[in-house]
């Protein structure tokens, strides 16, 4: 465990809590955004391919 009863200990305790919080935000955001992109990216991909096909015109 990280103890906060010395100057070094206080600094460690502060940074340990700070990085724990950061990690929770980073990991949670990563998983959530990945999920949304995986679901809604399909429509985007189709739109991109349709636009490229339209530009080519009849062959």
């Amino acid at each position, binding site marked *: 465990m990280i103890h906060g009863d010395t100057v070094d200990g206080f600094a460690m305790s502060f940074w340990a809590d700070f990085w724990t919080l950061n*990690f929770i935000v980073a*990991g949670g*955001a990563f998983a959530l955004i990945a999920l949304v992109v995986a679901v809604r*990216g399909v429509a*985007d991909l189709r739109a*991109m391919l349709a636009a*490229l096909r339209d530009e080519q015109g009849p062959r």
Partner: protein
Amino acid sequence: MNFSILDWVIVAVYLAATLAAGLAGKKYISSATDFLLAGRHLGKFIGIATLAATEIGTITFMYNAELGYKTGFSSFINGLISGGVMIFLGATGFMIFKLRELGLTTVPEFFEVKYSRRLRIVAGVLVAVGGLLNMGVFLKVEGTFLTIITGLPISNLKWTMTAILLLELLYTVLGGMVSIVITDFLQFIMLSLGTVLVTGYVIWTVGWHHMQNAVMSNMGASGFSPITAPDYGWAYIFFQLLLWMAIDTCWQTTAMRTFATKDPDTSRKVFFWTGFIFLGRGMMPMLWGIGALAYFGPKHDSLQAMPEMIARILPTGVLGLVVAGMIAATMSVNSSYLLGWSSVISQDIVLPLRRKPLGAGAQVVLNRVVNVFVSAFVLVWGLWYTLPGPVYFYLNITGTLFLAGAFAAFIGGLFWRRANTVGGYCAMLGGAVGSVTYFFHIPAAYAGISAFALAGVGMVVGSLAGASRKYRLE
């Protein structure tokens, strides 16, 4: 051998699906813009997928885990800066908006628009050299990961990486950016799944408090505070802020996503949301490295500790899924980097040096030929070059070789009417000189800061000394 038949089947099915999807992109190519920028049709979600997949590779996991193993929780500062800068750029649109408005294809193209054709060629050479040296170490590091985690004999490393490179080359040469975007989407899903799975297993198996205690007992306060950690400190943090601003705006593979979106507002949104992914892109693999420190202790090889731990803690089936995710990450990065550096060589060096312009079909052929050349270089360089220090610092400095000058010249070109060609040359020269000091035993933070400082001073002094030129940036 760590891999079971089930693991091999999962990897083989994934590779076959990727190749098929990649080859499907070929039929959509009818111009150089289609080949290099997917016709500038990227929407927000596919933009996030391709930008994230391009900048998350096995190499990313390896160097971030190495930082975690060596510097503990302090290493998280790197993830925080990389994500934070990207979120800031996305929220404000600073530079991103304007760059997309200009309708560029490559980063050095801006130098011809604002400065001169010759400076574009000089910038192109520096970008290509820095980019190729940077990418040159990817194969060896990625191969190390895959060899350890699958349990393949080390003698198979070269053949394994050659086969993966040829697979990437095949669909990149044929379908360009369109194939890359399609495969990036699949690869983004796989690598995200792999990243979350490994993170969950590491926390579950090693334990959060065990990791904190391992860092505390091996590194003390410097394992938590990036201010007091010997490898970091304020100078390093300042360097990283500048570096990530430059990477997000001037790094060819990132900039290609800016240029390829539907419009400037989409670019801004892509950056904002990808910034959150970048927080996890840094911190999660760094935690794997910290987990490896707790698992093996401090005397293990810093680069190999993370894959060795993963090979031991993941069960059959999950290991196959994770390796498929890592191969996905490897392929998405390498294919995008192949296209990125090839496009600079073809568009910013070969074409400007030719007196006669090339037709659309010939430009696509030229890009394909350069793709093959870049692959051959990466293969040879990756097999014999030995890294001078941590992978992350080497990648920083080879990138800074051109990023410092390019960033100063970009800022000057976009926001300072007095900026001129002489200033552009001085910025590129100053940035390159500052960054190579790293190879003469100057610490990465000081080499990096001196590169940005010399580039900035070069831009200002050179522009003031050179003749002013009226221009209209449209």
